[in-house]
């Protein structure tokens, strides 16, 4: 019988011996890293300059508008949305949304507190299929439709080492938020380590929240599921997914986007 210690030593020695030559590439690899990182920097600098110099409408619009007083802008938009909802109840959903779009530009400026730094972003009015409107930070996210479900995902796909980052919006026609919350709570219990009790919330939307987290590592998956009335017999289910490290990044952005979520009278004739 071989001694246990010898087995361990031989395994280690074998791996060391077979990797001795690979360390010779150290400087060569460093040069590649340096070049690539320098290139990244150069690229981003060039991009900024180009944006400043050329007529890039998004960038050009951004600065002066924001300096002028975003509070006024945001207030006006909120008022228009409310007015729209109460006065156009007889329009079809499509027409209604188009109508709103005519009243104010589909893009507006918001300032979000992301990871401690105020960030200026442009968000766009997106017309979801389920009778709601939401503003999407189009610089970072896009709305995709998969199997009839609307999902807000990052514009650039995330590296596979990151858990899923998304905000999914679905509508259930015949179940109330409380009933769905129970179902979701039970479901999450099966796959997440910690599931918090169902709570009523007013921010970012008024409804019920079931939140869960699976572990306490940087990449532990986090989910927040908001259940709110569709102002008829059913509910909207809005599920945010991100990971612990991204709570103040993607998490905060989803929160802000969701603040602008509005149910519209899509089926009214």
């Amino acid at each position, binding site marked *: 019988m071989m001694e246990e210690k010898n087995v361990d030593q031989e*395994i*280690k020695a074998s791996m060391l011996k*077979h*990797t001795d030559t690979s360390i010779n*590439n150290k400087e060569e690899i*460093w040069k590649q890293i340096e070049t690539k990182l320098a290139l990244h920097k150069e690229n981003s600098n060039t991009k900024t300059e180009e944006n400043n110099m050329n007529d890039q409408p998004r960038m050009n619009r951004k600065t002066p508008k924001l300096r002028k007083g975003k509070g006024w802008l945001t207030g006006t938009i909120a008022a228009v949305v409310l007015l729209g909802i109460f006065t156009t109840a007889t329009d079809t959903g499509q027409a209604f949304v188009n109508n709103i779009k005519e009243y104010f530009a589909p893009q507006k400026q918001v300032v979000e507190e992301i990871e401690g730094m105020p960030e200026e972003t442009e968000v766009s009015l997106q017309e979801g299929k389920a009778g709601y409107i939401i503003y999407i930070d189009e610089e970072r996210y896009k709305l995709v439709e998969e199997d009839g479900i609307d999902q807000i995902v990052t514009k650039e796909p995330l590296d596979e*080492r990151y858990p899923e980052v998304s905000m999914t919006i679905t509508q259930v026609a015949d179940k109330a938020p409380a009933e769905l919350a129970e179902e979701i709570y039970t479901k999450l219990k099966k796959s997440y380590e910690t599931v918090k009790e169902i709570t009523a919330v007013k921010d970012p939307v008024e409804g019920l929240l079931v939140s869960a987290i699976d572990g306490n*590592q940087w990449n532990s998956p986090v989910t927040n599921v908001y259940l709110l009335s569709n102002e008829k017999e059913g509910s909207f289910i809005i599920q945010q997914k991100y990971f612990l490290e991204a709570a103040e990044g993607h998490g905060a952005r989803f929160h802000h986007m969701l603040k602008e979520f509005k149910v519209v009278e899509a089926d009214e004739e």
Partner: protein
Amino acid sequence: MNEADLINQIKNGNNNAFRELYDLYFDYAIRVATVVMHNNATYVADAVQETFIRVYQNIHLYQAERPFKPWFYQILINECNRILKRNSKVISVGEIIERRRSDLEFENHRFVEYEDLYTAIQGLEQHNRIPIILKYLIGFKEQEIAEILSKNVNTIKSRLFKGRQKLKRFLEAKEEAN
């Protein structure tokens, strides 16, 4: 400068500190990548290079209260897996053994005595092999390996045990033959 200071300096954009980190981590990073990626020099260089680039670009995501080393190796292993997946049709175990045999004819004699064991390590299934590499090459504890690979610690214990048993049986058989 200790490691925590070094990371702070990198977070503050100090490129010299990044080079210091490279000096500290390169040696074992490339050894791990070499074993994980079956000594394919091109893949190994890509994985190590990408790892350091990712570390540099995502250093703000690293939380200082946690140990840096597992965070670093998690990135490295993911990079290796990504590259292996991208080139997944390439390497089969048969090819590895064949390559190792042909290497033998050219390589220095000092490799010979470990040759068979190394082939046995390379022949382990990936899910047993990576924990073995992290434990024996770097000296990570089971809990740390579990965190790096995002697996339950008991799963890792079992994989380490199975992998090591196979290597032990191999060594014993070899000893008997001699």
